[in-house]
């Protein structure tokens, strides 16, 4: 009985299988032909509603008032009162207007200004935010000149200072460091939580932060701006979400763009620039960094305490070679300031490059003047029996400086100076600098206003005790305490740099150029000086292909 049953069963099973197979084949054929039909229809422009940006470093935190450096997520979460346009003029952003009046800054906000969570932005809130910044931020001293506030009306704040407020006007009002934050929420949830999920009034707000991986932002539908150089002054309805991924490996970051998995890459390494320039699917944006990369010298430590030795080092560096090595992605410089900084003097560059043009002979003769000669012919100069050996601290987390380290070493060897490279993290190098414990240290800075950075590196009293020139101090003090017009300011910083060029406390190498690589599917992106800030108000991302 069982045998017959199983035989019958198996026959039915066979037919069943055959039937299933036929049905499947027909289904696949039907679906396939329908799909083919669809693909032949012309497709309307489809927009991808999410934008993916890849950046090299994860943010320390998301509360601008607690961090020491800002990057893309913060630029999207917060909105500054004013902003820089392409000619470094100051134009309105959140504020309707702002101006300097004697010893005060007045900021006028629109009456309906709101945070992303709906809380109103009032003059009181603006004042509270500044006070919070003074306490929490590493740069709180920005507002040291503030002696009081006056709330003119609900949306207008007057900040009163004891000196003309040029510093605040140039370093805080138009930058991300001077933004207003929702202090009420910060008090409620605590600073630590606010650092994970802050409330600002920028075009996007925080959805989630997956540490080590990415930050997802969603559109702030209450966003409004007064920027003259964007067309859409409200929320960007074409982009619902922005994902910012942290990919520190250069190769990985670029490969993700080439594989089509990210739309924008920031911090394009010098090796990839030429390749991406010829890639038809990629648009490359170049931004000249408002800053200089240089070797800092310890002017109080022998043998560098002799200015002739320092000047010799200036002559020994072949900056053109540096530019070649870095694939043309930098601007060689002899100055202490960059072209995109305020008060920059272009003709000074000409003067300095003439004065310190690459010359091994001049370098050697200066060393000789200072008593350093290579007597025993081993390639290293000596004086009183001691060899001219120096340690150079090179940051292993600053790719361009790290790359040219051996090149600099070779150039110094050519004039008889033996340089040992010691690679460390940049923060450690800064520690050694502060402790006087270095000979040569590679450094860089990035800030648009010289008053906001140079005194911290060169003024005797404040920053470090590795260089001191009272004349320079006086000039810095003058800039801080008086209201100079741009022409006078440029003259002042020219004066300062002439002294510095003589003293040579640094060996300026180059001004960096920052590159952003954008997929051709991204339309309407604005990349603005001085920091290459991205403005996405008019951006749309086209789908596919």
């Amino acid at each position, binding site marked *: 009985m069982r045998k017959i049953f199983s035989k019958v069963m198996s026959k039915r099973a066979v037919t069943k299988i055959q039937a299933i197979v036929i049905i499947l084949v027909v289904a696949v054929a039907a679906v396939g032909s329908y799909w083919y039909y669809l693909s032949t229809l012309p497709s309307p422009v489809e927009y991808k509603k999410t934008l993916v940006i890849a950046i090299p470093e994860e943010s320390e935190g998301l509360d601008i008032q607690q961090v020491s450096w800002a990057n893309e997520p913060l630029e999207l979460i917060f909105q500054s009162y004013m902003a820089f346009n392409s000619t470094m003029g100051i134009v309105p952003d959140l504020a309707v207007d702002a101006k300097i009046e004697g010893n005060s800054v007045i900021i006028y906000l629109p009456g309906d200004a709101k945070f992303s969570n709906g809380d109103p932005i009032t003059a009181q809130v603006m004042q509270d935010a500044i006070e919070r910044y003074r306490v929490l931020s590493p740069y709180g001293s920005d507002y040291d000149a503030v002696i009081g506030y006056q709330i003119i009306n609900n949306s207008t704040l007057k900040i009163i200072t004891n000196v003309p407020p040029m510093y605040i006007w140039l370093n805080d009002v138009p930058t991300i460091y001077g933004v207003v934050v929702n202090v009420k929420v910060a008090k409620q949830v605590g600073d630590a939580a606010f650092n994970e999920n802050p409330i600002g009034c920028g075009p996007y707000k925080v959805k989630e932060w997956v540490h080590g991986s990415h930050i997802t932002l969603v559109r702030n539908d209450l966003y409004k701006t007064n920027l003259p150089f964007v067309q859409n002054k409200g929320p960007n309805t074409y982009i619902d979400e922005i994902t910012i991924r942290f990919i520190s490996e250069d190769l990985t970051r670029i490969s993700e763009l080439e594989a089509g998995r990210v739309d924008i890459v920031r911090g394009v390494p010098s090796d*990839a620039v030429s390749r991406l320039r010829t890639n038809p699917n990629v648009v490359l944006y170049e931004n000249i960094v408002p800053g200089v990369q240089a070797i800092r010298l310890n002017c109080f430590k022998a043998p560098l305490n002799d200015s002739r030795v320092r000047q010799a080092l200036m002559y020994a560096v072949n900056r053109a070679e540096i530019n070649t*090595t870095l694939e043309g992605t930098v601007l060689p410089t002899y100055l202490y300031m960059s072209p995109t900084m305020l008060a920059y003097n272009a003709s000074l560059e000409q003067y300095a490059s003439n004065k310190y043009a690459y010359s091994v002979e001049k370098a050697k003769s200066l060393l000789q003047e200072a008593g350093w000669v290579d007597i025993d012919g081993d390639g290293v100069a000596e004086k009183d029996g001691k060899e001219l050996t120096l340690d150079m601290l090179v940051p292993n987390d600053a790719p361009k400086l790290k790359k040219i380290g051996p*090149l600099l070493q070779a150039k110094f060897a050519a004039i008889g100076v033996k340089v040992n490279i010691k690679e460390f993290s940049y923060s450690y190098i800064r520690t050694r600098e502060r402790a006087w414990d270095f000979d040569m240290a590679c450094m860089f800075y990035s800030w648009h206003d010289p008053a906001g950075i140079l005194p911290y590196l060169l003024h005797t009293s404040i920053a470090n005790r590795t260089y001191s020139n009272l004349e320079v101090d006086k000039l810095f003090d003058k800039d801080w305490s008086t209201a100079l017009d741009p022409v006078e300011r440029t003259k002042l910083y020219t004066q300062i740099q002439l002294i510095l060029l003589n003293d040579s406390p640094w060996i300026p190498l180059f001004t960096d150029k920052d590159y952003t690589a954008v997929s051709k599917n991204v339309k309407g992106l604005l990349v603005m000086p001085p920091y290459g800030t991205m403005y996405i108000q008019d951006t749309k991302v086209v789908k596919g292909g």
Partner: protein
Amino acid sequence: MNVEGKKEVESENSSRLIGVKNFFLLLIHYRTSFAGLIIVVGITIIAIFAPFIAPKHYAEIDVSNRLQPPSLSHLFGTDALGRDVFSRVVYGAQIALWVGMIVVLIEAAIGIPLGIIAGYYNGKIDKIISALSDLVWSFPPVVLALGVVTVLGAGITQVVIAIALTSWCAFTRVTRAKVQSLVNREFILAARAIGESDFSIMFRYLLPNVASSNLVLATLTLPAAILSTTALSFLGFGVQPPTPDWGAILSEGANQLVIAPWIATFPGIFIVITALSFNLLGDGLRDLLDPKLKI
């Protein structure tokens, strides 16, 4: 006693090189471990005669010739600063072997005495040494090395110390196991009986008998040491520029992998070949000298 007895028998078996089974072993591994031996010798020669083999000094910069693909004048091409990659790789062999040897020597110098003491004395000392050895053995070496290097700073010496500290335990374990199997043999008991000092016993009898196992282990540890050094250099904690450690060259070349793949490929190949040859040689040695050896 039963356990010891069984182990004794096993070791007797392994140390007899005569016999059909072992002959076949020799024959089969002859090919691969012999190849390993040849390559090891080759790399050693390259390392010793590096200044004569390398056409240029490893730090010689020539920016106008940068990123050249391999050619007759530059066998492995040039890197981003115009340095000859072939010369750098050849000098890199010096560093790799030198560092590898020193690391192994330090590890052996720490591990073997500890192993002998642990195996000989048993009891509490054995427990402490074994526990320490087990703990360090299972702790991730990368993390430990990173920690040591961060405290001591970067540089070849520090890297050597860091790596040596992470794998000395292999020598301890192997030595201890071997000593435990020898400790109750007649010649040891006899030496004890006539009042020979512990130290003398350990030095004159135990040490030579653990030599063969440790030789195998040394051959197998060297490639691991080289891989670890290059890993640390890759992460940026190793040698200082312009020293041409293979890992450092690889790290520099990684970013140019698409436009100048030769910079990263050749040191990579050399690392693999060197490590592979030592591993093959070590495998052969193990089958020859002590097949029961567990790394």
